[in-house]
């Protein structure tokens, strides 16, 4: 087993055909997909509200954050996982859920290409190779309101 520095470790996720990596220190919990209640008038990437640990939790569509088509259906128990993660850089930290199809593993990645803040809400920061997979590296702290 290779010891990995915390700064280099990512949680690899799959949303549809896309793979992405979240910095491990931004991830609070991986749970089986939470029940999402749709919120009328919400943006497409906001699937709705869920309850996690007795608290209301907004859940975002990871695929749409990556620029992919929506892979999760709101209002229903879907197969997959919900990644509870800290989003933005506010204090106290704000918690949100990311709906993904699968949480693959925790792996140390070396970013092969930095893209700057791109993608919806500017959270895509680069790309990396996980084995033979190309993964998109997200930085949830880069959340922008736009």
């Amino acid at each position: 087993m290779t010891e990995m520095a915390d700064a280099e470790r990512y949680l690899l996720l799959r949303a549809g055909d896309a793979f992405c990596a979240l910095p491990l220190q931004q991830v609070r919990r991986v749970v089986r997909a939470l029940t999402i209640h749709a919120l009328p008038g919400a943006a497409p990437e906001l699937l709705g509200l869920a309850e996690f640990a007795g608290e209301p939790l907004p859940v975002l569509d990871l695929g749409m954050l990556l620029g992919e088509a929506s892979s999760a259906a709101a209002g229903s128990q879907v197969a997959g996982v919900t990644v509870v993660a800290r989003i933005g850089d506010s204090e106290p930290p704000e918690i949100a859920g990311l709906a993904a199809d699968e949480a693959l593993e925790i792996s140390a990645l070396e970013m092969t290409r930095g893209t700057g803040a791109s993608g919806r809400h500017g959270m895509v920061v680069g790309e990396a190779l996980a084995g033979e997979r190309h993964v998109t590296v997200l930085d949830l702290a880069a959340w922008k309101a736009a």
Partner: protein
Amino acid sequence: MRPVPTVLASGEEFMLLRRHGGLWAAPGSAVHACEAQAGERVILRLASGAQLEADQVLGMVRGLGVRSLGAVLRTCWTESARGLAVHAGEPCVVIDEAAPPEALRFHGGVASEVEE
């Protein structure tokens, strides 16, 4: 490292409504009148003069822990609300009686299902 919830109105009484499958909480003091419609449909007249339409009125509840909306909701949801709460394991939106969400508004005439 859990976020500290912001309790906005822990001792206040709320009327729980079911609308478009979601759970909503209206401040009890803001509800001026209730008018039953066909089935379990109810028209709520608020003190502000606004009228809300609910598919079902679940009842009154006291002591909801109301949290603020947060940046994500404020970014991705255009409506305004007093905050979020959880009732019986289900999240609900605590509405702002001064600016209730469009999805709950009743604009007169025959009460109708609002397209989501």
